[in-house]
């Protein structure tokens, strides 16, 4: 594995499978009475969040602590960013403190790439950049699909075939502004899945040239053939940009309502990166039905991030119980 995790494409199919295999062991660690291993003892991980995301930050910090790393939190609101310090100054200041990894979240696409250029030693992990990528979300999504299908007795992929071989997955909603969608498309397709993007044209990227996906504007016709329906959060301010007439119309055409959820086949999974706008992209009752694995995604987030931190920082360290 390279020094950084910036894009899901840094990993490739083999890398994703490696992370998932390792995640299995960290799921086991997380289930112990004392869910902690000494793998990263003496290492320091900084979470550098320029954009509020308590969920993702806590997930990474919990993962680092369970590996016995020291954790520092840098949030833009409590930092010198508001005092006019440049992004580069901030990053170099943090490096000077002697650290091993930086987990970066920023509203601007590409910031983790810039941070990686400016740092000399530490690893950079992209915890979500603008509309661009969110690789650990894609990893936990792949892991959750694999895990939940196994738990539900679904047929495993043939020997030698990738983990999501032949699955039909639809990603529904605001693809244009979604870092989750960009990383998931790369991850799902590299693991052999067929991906359909379902959205009004205003919420699709302006160009899909080179994207290995199909596109539909008709959710009802897509739902019956799906193994996974992946719903994206709809930002309520999109109406102001003339991207949608109203939330009501969005829900009526692209929301996973109770009625629409019945079009899903047996065993189809319902996923969402959170936080859910209940009643907008998905009906409240649907969130709580058994085919919804949204809570499991969150639970797996910690184990997946442990696997990523371990692969980047713990090379050569034996994985033993504390």
């Amino acid at each position, binding site marked *: 594995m390279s020094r950084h995790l910036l894009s899901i494409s840094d990993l490739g199919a083999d890398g994703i499978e490696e992370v998932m295999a390792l995640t299995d062991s960290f799921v086991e660690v997380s289930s112990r009475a004392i869910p902690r291993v000494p793998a990263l003892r003496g290492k320091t991980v900084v979470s550098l969040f320029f954009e509020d995301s308590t969920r993702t930050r806590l997930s990474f910090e919990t993962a680092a602590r369970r590996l016995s790393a020291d954790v520092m939190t840098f949030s833009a609101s409590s930092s010198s960013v508001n005092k006019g310090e*440049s992004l580069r100054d901030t990053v170099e200041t943090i490096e000077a403190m002697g650290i091993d990894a930086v987990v970066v979240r920023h*509203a601007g*696409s*590409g910031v983790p790439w810039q941070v990686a*250029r400016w740092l000399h030693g530490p690893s950079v992990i992209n915890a979500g950049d603008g509309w661009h990528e969110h690789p650990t979300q894609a990893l936990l999504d792949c892991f959750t699909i694999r895990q939940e299908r196994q738990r539900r007795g679904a047929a495993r992929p043939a020997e030698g075939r990738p983990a999501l071989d032949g699955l039909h997955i639809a990603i529904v909603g605001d693809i244009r502004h979604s870092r989750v969608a*960009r990383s998931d498309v790369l991850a799902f397709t590299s693991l052999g899945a067929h991906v359909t993007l379902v959205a009004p044209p205003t919420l699709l*990227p302006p160009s899909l040239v080179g994207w290995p996906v199909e596109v539909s504007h008709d959710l009802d016709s897509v739902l019956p053939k799906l193994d996974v329906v992946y719903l994206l959060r709809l930002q309520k301010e999109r109406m102001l940009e003339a991207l949608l007439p109203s939330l009501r119309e969005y829900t009526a055409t692209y929301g996973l309502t109770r009625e629409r959820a019945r079009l899903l086949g047996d065993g189809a999974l319902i996923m969402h990166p959170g936080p859910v706008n209940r009643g907008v992209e998905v009906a409240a009752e649907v969130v709580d039905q058994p085919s919804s694995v949204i809570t499991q995604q969150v639970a797996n987030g910690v184990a997946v991030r442990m696997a990523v931190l371990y692969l980047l920082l713990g090379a050569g360290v034996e994985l033993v119980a504390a």
Partner: protein
Amino acid sequence: MIRGGTIVDLTGTQVADVLIQDGVVATIGSKISSVPAGTVVLDASGCVVAPGLVDLHAHLRQPGREEAETVATGARAAALGGYTAVVAMPNTEPAIDCAAVVREVLDLGAGSCCDVRVAGAITVGRQGRQLAPMAEMAGLGVQIFTDDGCGVQDARLMRRAMEYASALGVTLAQHCEDASLAGGGHMHEGEWSSRLGIAGQPAEAEELMVMRDLALARLTGASMHFLHLSTAGSLAMIRGAKASGLTVTAEVTPHHFTLTDAEVASYDPVFKVNPPLRSESDVEAVKAALADGVVDAIATDHAPHAQETKEAPFDEAPPGMLGLETALGLALTELDLPIERILALLSWQPADIAGLTAEHGGPIAVGRPANLCVIDPTAKWVVDPAALASRSRNTPYTGRALVGRTRHTVLFGEPVVVNGEAQR
């Protein structure tokens, strides 16, 4: 005295020495032997002796952004690039929108390495609401008016500006960008912006305003200059407008014929510029329009920015890149055109658009002002940001190998660059 070069100007080519006295060309001849004692001799062997280059589009940042560039440092960069005249854009702070600021910039330029001219704003404060006092600025010699940095959005105001300007014998120049359609996009909208998750501005945001202004030029009869055109569609419209007899001119920048939006994949804001780097097919269209004469000038859009402002997230960094010191080398290296065509695009055609032909752009003839550059068309060099004379470092060409460079620059008879070294 410039010895041993080949003179290339709009009248043709000849091997000859050029003797300069009192700021003007005194003698042209082969192997001039009667040279007054103490005459500085500039070696031009293997070189082209050309009229000094003229840049229609440079941001010299003064007043207001002296940490990025000053008139003096920008003029030095220009002279090193072979320019003897530059037109300073008015998006300073305060904007060049009245005689006082015009005078200030002209004063700052006096005694610098280059003949610094000024473009005035079309509207007060470049706010797009009220006409700036164009007559008062024209009285100080301002020939080009533009709100560059943004386009004049209001069609009625632009129409009135054209009508008003036509009585002054000046040219309006437009930065073509429909702000509502561009929507704050930070790069060209297309395959790359979609993949990179960066808000884009479509080619049509530029083309809509080109289309509107061509219609207004037809309506008013005004002469229009189109700044930094970057799309195939814009150039096709200019081609059509010229064929139909409209008096319009157009410029393109070196970065729009050498770089594409694929560069943004690095997320390095040094590649952020407005109009943005476009697609491969747009780059090809720009080159074709340079070759077939639809484009009248290569202009740099030299836009210095302090280092720290370019060390920000891509969507927060200001647009713009350096250009004065690399334009000639890029044109000679990347364009498959004879040197006299390249010089037409860099010297005498822009001199004509800027109304500077009395002093700049040649021809090189006895009695004419000696504003000249000596170009070594075979000089190989590599762009090194640290070696640039500009106060800023935001060149997108770091490490790029170029062939062709200015050896000497002569401004009104004075050598301001000798062997690649600025003398002021």
